[in-house]
């Protein structure tokens, strides 16, 4: 059995780790709440963009459009959204696995990675990562932080007008989404790839999130259903030129937010269980410590008794 001193030192160290994990759990919880509210805000844009695309596809001229018409698949582009940091359970691993399992069926893959964890994992497996964006999570943190600052400032002053508009972080994040979707559209239009997939984590609830692979380009066949009698002010092809980037940016933007939500949720859950485990270890170590102390005391008494009997005798 180790000495009292060594056990004591271990208890202190586990206690310190427990505190850190508890703090990380709380931070993730707060950030999750902030980002979740942003997901709700972005939903109308994404939903309406999808509707516009559906209506467009029902046009007679649409079936020959470059964005709609399926081509023979020679190359495939993937946008893989993962986190920049670990300590969030199997979140990053799940998304890489999801992407990898699909890539096994395709050759000549071109990957745009968001997040260092996904980028590194895919590079290690010898995949062709064209470009990577690794400051998204920082902007996401900033967004969560800005949001809390806004509510504080609004509560205190309620006059700052600039703060009532979309925040700087939000605009910056959407710019990134536009940049990435622009790259994907360039790849698709130039013929380097014939299909575009987005791999992200779909947020259902704090305890349930699943890695999802969504095909975004080509836009695919029109849905069965009655077509709307829609009048197009401009040429339908020109419409696709404008509506497709908007749809894709909105998709990438909400995928970014949803993935961030899942990352925070995953971190929250894993840090929560880590805190519990640390508590159990502390309990066990305290028990060992007490036993050791009792053993030490018993031994001392034995020695005193033994010593006394020797001097008597």
């Amino acid at each position, binding site marked *: 059995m180790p000495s009292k001193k060594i056990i004591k030192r271990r208890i202190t160290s586990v206690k310190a780790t427990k505190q850190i994990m508890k703090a990380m759990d709380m931070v993730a919880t707060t950030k999750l709440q902030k980002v979740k509210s942003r997901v709700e805000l972005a939903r*109308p844009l994404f939903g309406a963009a999808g509707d516009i695309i559906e209506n467009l596809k029902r046009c007679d001229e649409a079936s020959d459009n470059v964005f709609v018409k399926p081509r023979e698949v020679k190359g495939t582009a993937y946008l893989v959204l993962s986190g920049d940091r670990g300590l969030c359970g199997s979140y990053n691993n799940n998304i890489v696995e999801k992407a990898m399992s699909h890539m096994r069926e395709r050759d000549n893959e071109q990957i745009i990675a968001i997040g260092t964890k996904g980028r590194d994992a895919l590079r290690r497996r010898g995949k062709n990562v064209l470009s990577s964006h690794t400051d998204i999570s920082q902007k996401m943190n900033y967004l969560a932080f800005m949001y809390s600052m806004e509510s504080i400032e609004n509560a205190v002053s309620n006059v700052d007008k600039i703060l009532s508009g979309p925040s700087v972080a939000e605009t910056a994040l959407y710019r990134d989404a536009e940049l990435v979707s622009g790259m994907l559209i360039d790849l698709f239009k130039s013929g380097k790839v014939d299909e575009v997939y987005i791999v992200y984590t779909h947020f259902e609830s704090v305890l349930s999130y699943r890695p999802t692979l969504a095909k975004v380009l080509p836009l695919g066949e029109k849905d069965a259903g009655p077509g709307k009698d829609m009048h197009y002010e401009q040429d339908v092809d020109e419409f696709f030129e404008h509506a497709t980037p908007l749809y894709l940016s909105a998709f990438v933007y909400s995928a970014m937010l949803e993935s961030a939500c899942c990352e925070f949720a995953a971190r929250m859950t894993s840090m929560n269980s880590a805190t519990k485990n640390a508590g159990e270890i502390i309990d066990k170590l305290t028990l060992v410590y007490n036993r050791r102390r009792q053993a030490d005391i018993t031994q001392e008494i034995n020695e005193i008794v033994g010593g006394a009997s020797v001097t008597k005798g």
Partner: protein
Amino acid sequence: MADKKLRLKVATPAGFAVDQDCDMIIMRCTDGDMGVLPGHQASSVILDHGVLRLIDDGVEYKLAVMGGVGEVERDVMTILTPSALWPHEIDAAMARSEKEDAERRLEQKLDEHEERRNKALLARALVHVEVSTHVVAQVDRDV
């Protein structure tokens, strides 16, 4: 037509910038201005960088819209845009200085890409300046 209203919804990444009833909308499309009244034929439009004018009960409001697409159907006009700002959300001084910067850079002889970028920046700044100086909207909205 005063009893019949048109619902305007402007969706941006930060949520609905506008979700209200009005009498008339005039917006800048890629091929010119377009006005929409209640009972308009179902149609879709491509928006350009420009001012969206919203007329309700004789009061005109202005909104800076940075492109996007719009769809009108059954008295509901839905506009999707990367950015839509009310006058009070625009920093007027910053918009003016952005306009001057863009004008200054356009005077220099730059390559085609730079020139296109500066023209886009100037267009944006001009819209922001126009909207931010639209005082009536601000007063009426605050009431």
